[in-house]
């Protein structure tokens, strides 16, 4: 299985471009200006120094995030809405299937939450807008507020787009298996296919609880018109509580030429795991299956050999980790207050220098090297003694 959220791309692009356009044209190189700004304003990103004033003149001039104007808000279902946003021009665009973070301030606190872009890149290229579909997470801290708080005309912060480029290629037959709000990146991919007039045979298996939970219904209908080879199967799994129809082998058997297809999975972790197993059983080669692991919370982690002594060297605190909590949580329960953002390995806000020891990335299961490197606190657990610059 491929891990499709590739952070590096998004982060590298995210740094420094914001004021490049303005300053590079003035004379000395960007690095010179940046160096000078650092001397004068004592910060890594000197462009942000002016934010407090610029923001109060025009919120779209802020540099610490990319501002986007909310154009329209449309209800998809009883608990989801699609926001059409117009980002500031310096936003770098995106590829089909990518994600972005919404950056918002609620009660004085900054939150960064990942969402998939639900339109094709042509929207951005042609009229400078993008759409993001938000589904309310029951008991969530941010999504219910997001859905209530914003009105057309408001300004919301966004990050640059990140994640693997899933722009559809001509030729390959495809199978999408999605559940709930996992449909959103697929809408982007299908729309991109239609824009490119691709004729690949495509089957979309879309699992929702009931008919009232279908997100992007209109868009899917329109896409069915534009994509003659699209086979659309929306399964309302719990429409009839007596006869639930959850993902099973029969759904896959109905897909023509299954083993030839490129498969793309997006949805709740349970559904994706199940789909992976079913595809493997049906003989689909692993390299043809890719997925977006999107709705993963911190959860309890059980890894062999995990756990060890964690030394936070800057504050000189040592804790014993049993390996069942991420380093971020270990640090927080030790009374530290490390910077964090998404808490799910996406935004790199909590990145920190590990000076020695091995940590295991819980999303990939991969152990790190021994030496000094930057790690994300929110997705790593220690394997043996670890020293962190915190």
């Amino acid at each position, binding site marked *: 299985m491929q891990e499709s959220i590739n952070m590096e791309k998004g982060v590298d692009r995210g740094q420094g471009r914001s004021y490049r356009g303005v300053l590079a044209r003035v004379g000395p190189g960007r690095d010179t200006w940046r160096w*000078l700004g650092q*001397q*004068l304003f*004592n*910060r*890594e990103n000197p462009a*942000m*120094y*002016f*934010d*407090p*004033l610029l923001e*109060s003149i025009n919120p779209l001039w802020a540099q*610490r995030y990319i501002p986007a104007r909310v154009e329209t808000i449309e209800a998809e279902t009883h608990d989801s809405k699609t926001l059409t946003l117009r980002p500031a021009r310096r936003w770098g665009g995106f590829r089909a299937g990518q994600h972005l973070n919404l950056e918002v*301030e609620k*009660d*004085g*606190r*900054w*939150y960064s939450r990942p969402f998939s872009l639900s339109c094709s890149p042509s929207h951005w290229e042609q009229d400078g807008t993008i759409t993001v579909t938000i589904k309310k997470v029951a008991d969530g801290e941010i999504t219910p507020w997001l859905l209530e708080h914003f009105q057309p005309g408001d300004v919301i912060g966004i990050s640059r787009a990140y994640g693997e480029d899933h722009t559809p290629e001509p030729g390959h037959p495809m199978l999408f298996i999605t559940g709930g709000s996992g449909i959103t990146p697929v809408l982007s991919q299908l729309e991109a296919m239609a824009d490119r007039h691709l004729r690949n045979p495509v089957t979309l298996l879309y699992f929702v609880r009931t008919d009232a939970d279908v997100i992007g219904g209109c868009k899917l209908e329109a896409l069915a018109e534009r994509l003659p080879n699209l086979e659309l199967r929306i399964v309302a799994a719990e429409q009839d509580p007596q006869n639930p129809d959850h993902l099973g082998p029969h759904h896959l058997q109905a897909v023509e030429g299954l083993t030839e297809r490129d498969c793309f999975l997006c949805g709740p972790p349970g559904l994706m795991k199940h789909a992976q197993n079913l595809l493997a059983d049906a003989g689909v080669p692993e390299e043809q299956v890719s997925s977006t692991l999107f709705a993963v919370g911190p959860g309890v982690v059980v890894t062999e050999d995990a756990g060890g002594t964690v030394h936070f060297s800057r504050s000189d605190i040592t804790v014993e980790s049993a390996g069942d909590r991420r380093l971020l949580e270990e640090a927080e329960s030790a009374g530290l*207050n*490390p*910077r*964090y*953002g998404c808490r799910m390995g996406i935004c790199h*806000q909590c990145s920190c220098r590990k000076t020695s020891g091995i940590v295991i990335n819980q999303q990939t299961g991969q152990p790190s090297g021994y030496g000094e490197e930057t790690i994300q606190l929110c997705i790593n657990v220690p394997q043996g003694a670890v020293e962190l610059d915190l």
Partner: protein
Amino acid sequence: MQKLSEEQLENLAQDLDAIRNEQMADLGQKDADYIRGIIRLHRTLEFGGRALMPLGFIPPFFLAGMTSLGIAKILENMEIGHNVMHGQYDWMNDPELNSQTYEWDTICTADSWKRTHNYEHHTYTNVIGKDRDYGYAVLRLEDETPWKPMHLLQMINFINLSVFFQWGVGVHELEFEKLRSGEVTLREKAEFLRDFARKGGRQVFKDYAFYPALTLPVAPVVIAGNFGANLIRNLWASSVIFCGHFTEDAESFTEEECENESRGHWYLRQLTGSSNFTGPNWVYTLSGHLSHQIEHHVFPDIPAYRYREISPQVQAVCEKYGLHYNADSFPRQYATVLKRVTAFSLPDRMRERLFPEFNEGDEQGKVADRTTSTSLVSRLRNRVSSTLSAAA
């Protein structure tokens, strides 16, 4: 020092924790709006000051530019930098207001400050030998430290420290006195010196090279104005800090008193080792709310502008345990600082005779000394406090 029983200390800790928890639970938009408003004011004053400075050959513009930049530096250092680095706004999760990454507009690096101030000074407040902020290793302010003839001239140190305060704070971690005694070596301080040179160079470059060069024909005026702005900040910042711990009634402690201390004992030390000054709200803001040094020391990571509101609650706690809540106007507190610096510059015998109010002894003796004190300031203060207590 004022003593409380173990049980009283435990209750004291509980009472103060309750105030703290109530405040922490209430953090929200109000605090974010407040600090952002201050930052906007700072940027406006800084850009305004720097823009006026080249016109400084016209005296009123010089004065306006210098004052504007001076106040900007004061706000940045005290209400923004100091408080942000204490982690008062970490909960906002704003990378611009994060205690780990904030760097302020002064010679001292943020990292050095956080080590010497947030850690050493706030943990070992007024503990002689451990809190190097108590006298900054250039002032003798208590009789634990043996008197030497050089102390006779410590008023000169005091003036120098006030005028060049940012440099004093900048080299504070060099621990010059320990270097001289051989306790630490220069090699151990290499990293500190490198960071100090980088940050110091940056600050000097900005105020004395870059901005003057930008306005070349009037560069001397700009240099003078920037020097003046830094001087204004140095004098004010040092005065505020001296009034926080060096006043007549602020207590100091010995290491033995503080070994294995409880949380309650730490609280007690913060309450009795700090002193407040009173004034209008704008003075509080300009002091970064270190006017409320007592509240700051018991709750260093609560957004400082809240100290004003909490003050009556903290006073009530002090009253409950019979502790002296040391608050007075700024001029009076500053006068007692000068008195302390003068008193301890003298040999002990002479001081005991001339400044009996600083004599150690049991509390009753101290009170008796106070009433017989001939100093005009303390007589005035006693009259005010007795009128106040009579009114109460």
